[in-house]
């Protein structure tokens, strides 16, 4: 039964890989595109992993809740305080609630929530999936015939897409409350008057735009964090890079999306 193989067969020559930053950038772009398409292909096919989605929604909400509450309140309070002198010059301090509500609902609430979530949730998703990749846990799921992409990626992206809008709405109301504390302290405005002045200038478009923005931001945070983690390499160094990449890329994309969505919604006003 003993056999000896003496000569190696002719080896084939492989085509060289594209090198350089530009080539790498386009390859990454292509890979992200494929990753997003794969998400849409797998996310809406059974089984839906409802339990895991709920667990991830809870994780996303709980991870950011305290920080978002604190930041939202402070943003509202400080924004109102800083705006008062400028409005005061024109004798228009009574416009403060309207200014606060427009600024918060149209821009600050979704943006602040998304940036905080990118830092807290995005990095966490990147590190978690990155760690699972380098310890072969994702491979273990793959070889056991389960679908790791669906279980790990789809559930997280759906969770961030659903939870960030809820958190952004919550941030908006907390920030408005922060503004109320400042207005009530300085002008003695009642809560009901303040709230009426807050909601009067807001239109349906404002709420819709804010909601759409939050959904897009949530999807971005989930998909970027998952992509960075799912394809992380090079051991623990790779995990760190995945977490870092998840935050930096998500924040960069959030700002770009903010500009694009603001431009689009301005056409509807």
């Amino acid at each position: 039964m003993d056999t000896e193989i003496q000569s190696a067969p002719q080896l084939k020559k492989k085509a060289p890989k594209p090198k350089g930053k530009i080539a790498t950038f386009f390859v990454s772009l292509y890979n992200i595109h494929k990753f997003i398409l794969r998400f849409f292909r797998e996310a809406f096919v059974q089984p839906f992993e409802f339990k895991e989605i709920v667990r991830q929604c809870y994780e996303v909400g709980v991870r950011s809740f305290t920080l978002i509450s604190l930041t939202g309140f402070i943003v509202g309070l400080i924004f109102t305080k800083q705006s008062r002198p400028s409005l005061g010059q024109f004798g228009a301090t009574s416009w403060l609630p309207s200014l606060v509500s427009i600024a918060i609902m149209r821009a600050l609430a979704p943006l602040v929530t998304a940036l905080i979530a990118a830092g807290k949730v995005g990095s966490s998703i990147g590190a978690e999936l990155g760690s699972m990749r380098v310890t072969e846990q994702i491979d273990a799921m793959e070889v056991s015939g389960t679908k790791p992409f669906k279980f790990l990626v789809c559930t997280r992206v759906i969770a961030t897409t659903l939870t960030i809008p809820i958190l952004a709405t919550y941030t908006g109301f907390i920030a408005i409350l922060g503004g109320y504390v400042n207005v009530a302290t300085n002008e003695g405005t009642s809560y009901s008057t303040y709230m009426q002045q807050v909601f009067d200038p807001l239109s349906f478009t404002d709420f819709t735009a804010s909601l759409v923005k939050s959904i897009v931001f949530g999807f971005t945070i989930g998909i970027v964090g998952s992509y960075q983690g799912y394809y992380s390499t090079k051991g623990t160094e790779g995990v760190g890079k995945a977490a870092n990449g998840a935050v930096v890329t998500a924040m960069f994309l959030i700002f770009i999306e903010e500009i694009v969505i603001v431009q689009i919604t301005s056409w509807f006003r």
Partner: protein
Amino acid sequence: MDKPKAPIDYNNAVITIKGLEKSFDDYDVLRGIDLQLFQGENLVVLGRSGTGKSVLIKIISGLLETDRGTIEVLGQDINRISDKELQELRIRIGFSFQNSALYDSMTVRKNLEFPLVRNRKGITKHEIDEAVESVLDAVGLSQTINQMPSELSGGQRKRIGIARTLILNPEIMLYDEPTAGLDPITCIEINELINEVQQKYKTSSIIITHDLTCAKQTGDRIAMLLDGQFQRQGTFDEVFDTKDERVKPFFDYNFIR
């Protein structure tokens, strides 16, 4: 401990590999591998670190793609089957990872249930519990059922990793360095477990190792991987009795002879 006799069907190959080549960047790892694994056989692939042993079983399980060559697993060419077919094929193959790869956010029970509930539609809670208890019993770790992977020792993690693959009743087992990083006594226990799995679950296995004790105790046949090719194949003693200068040093540094 001598290797128990296993009923091997040499007319029935469950894995057939022809002309397999794989390279990473400019490094050619596998250079034209030919191999057959027969029904009921434990095949040990021996070789130094970095010779492509793990790459070989990752290709067999579809985790890595080949550059060239054909791989037939349980009658299916893994390069030509669809994703769905590959997923179904994987259920019939068990893969025990070098570092166990237990899901560290889940308890032992959840680790074992995970592949089962996702691959057996309509399975009842009672059947799941029964399967979990059965595989835990097979690896002798029933008491760890509610523990987290971080609470287990290296040997226990290996055993739970093997239990997780056994829960789907695989026909083929792929062991990646099953005794790496374990003390000699635990190594022998793991070797015994590999033989028990072969006997009880009637599996055909490829065992990747550079541990000669493991090779001697578990292998019905040994294949020596050197320079990206199998330089020698045979029983442990056949491979051992060589004057081949590339193979000899591997055994000379070992204590078991």
